[in-house]
């Protein structure tokens, strides 16, 4: 009788998909996953902008994002240079976002704040605060032209899968998903605006709409708003998961922060 119960229990677990603990989740091998755009097809957001905005981005003397870079350079010299060599930090922004084992996704912003609390021994900078944007702009600028390389096993991580689900899930009043536009309709227009391929390589970017520099986190929340769906809170980890997915998706495009966007 006990034997039968145990067998029943196992079949029950199998039926409802409850995997016994300690066994790996059966997932397709990561190599099988195709990116939406091949390397040669990748186009950064700048190429979808009006010519005058492209010109403003190309010329550092006209790019208002450089004001944030200047302030970030000063902050770096004051707070970070004690431990970090500015030269050695050149590629940092190209290495993030990264998945930590059993942990959340580390973005450039979380890495800066981690240093801020652990090493500088000061309170976190709030997201979208001037000093955080200045530091992230400076470090992204230092890595300008570098290419992000995703971790080899990133597609088998839960964070990446959550990011992809968020990107491909239809949501909001307009029945849109991110992929519906940015994977399939890039180059066409929605209302009056060209649809980009949805890469985050220009962020933190100066957006004319914001009249200031904002992070990818803010840009993604603006995307949710535009899709007329629930906008996640700034601290929602789904935004970091999405950033991770986007970085994997745009792997091969050179970083171009601080970019100028409309």
């Amino acid at each position, binding site marked *: 009788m006990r034997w039968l119960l145990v067998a029943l229990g196992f079949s029950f677990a199998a039926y409802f998909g409850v995997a016994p603990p300690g066994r790996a989740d059966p997932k397709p091998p990561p190599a099988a996953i195709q990116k939406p755009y091949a390397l040669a097809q990748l186009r950064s957001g700048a190429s979808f902008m009006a010519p005058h905005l492209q010109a403003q981005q190309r010329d550092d003397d006209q790019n*208002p994002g*450089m*004001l944030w870079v*200047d*302030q970030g350079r*000063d902050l770096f010299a004051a707070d970070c240079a004690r431990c970090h060599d500015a030269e050695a930090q050149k590629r940092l922004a190209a290495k993030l976002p990264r998945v930590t084992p059993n942990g959340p996704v580390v973005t450039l912003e979380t890495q800066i704040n981690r240093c801020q609390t652990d090493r500088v021994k000061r309170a976190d900078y709030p997201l979208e605060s001037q000093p955080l944007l200045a530091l992230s702009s400076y470090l992204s600028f230092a890595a300008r032209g570098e290419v992000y390389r995703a971790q080899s096993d990133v597609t088998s991580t839960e964070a990446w899968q959550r990011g992809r689900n968020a990107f491909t899930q239809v949501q909001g009043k307009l029945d849109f998903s991110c992929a519906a536009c940015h994977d399939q309709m890039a180059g066409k227009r929605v209302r009056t605006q060209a649809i980009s391929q949805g890469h985050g390589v220009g962020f933190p970017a*100066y957006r*004319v709409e914001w*009249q*200031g520099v904002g992070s990818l986190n803010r840009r993604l929340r603006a995307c949710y708003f535009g899709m007329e769906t629930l906008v996640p809170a700034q601290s929602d980890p789904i935004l970091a998961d999405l950033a991770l997915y986007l970085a994997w998706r745009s792997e091969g495009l050179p970083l171009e922060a601080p970019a100028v966007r409309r």
Partner: protein
Amino acid sequence: MSEPSTSLNPPGRNARLIVPRLLQRGEEFTARLLIQHPMETGFRRDDAGKMLPANVIEEIILRFDGELVFRGRVLNALSANPSLAVLLTAQKSGTLSANWRDQMGNVGSISAELRVAGG
């Protein structure tokens, strides 16, 4: 045009003044000024619905070695973080300085060294 040199910036800088690195005597050049400023029009509200008071840069002055070379009254037709380009001619090396004042009485300044060959 020669390679631009960036300004001598004080800490906590909020502007860029860009001039060419080396000039010939009498050469016309563009001095470019980029100021970080909200240029608040007075027509916007904050997240709580309160009107944001108007605050735009009123006056920008450029001086070369103390001598006035440009005075501009700029009002609310400029966007946030305004960029200004001024055509100037240099006869000798010296310091180009920019000063501005907004409606709240905040002042800002920045300067850059001009080097004229043989001057």
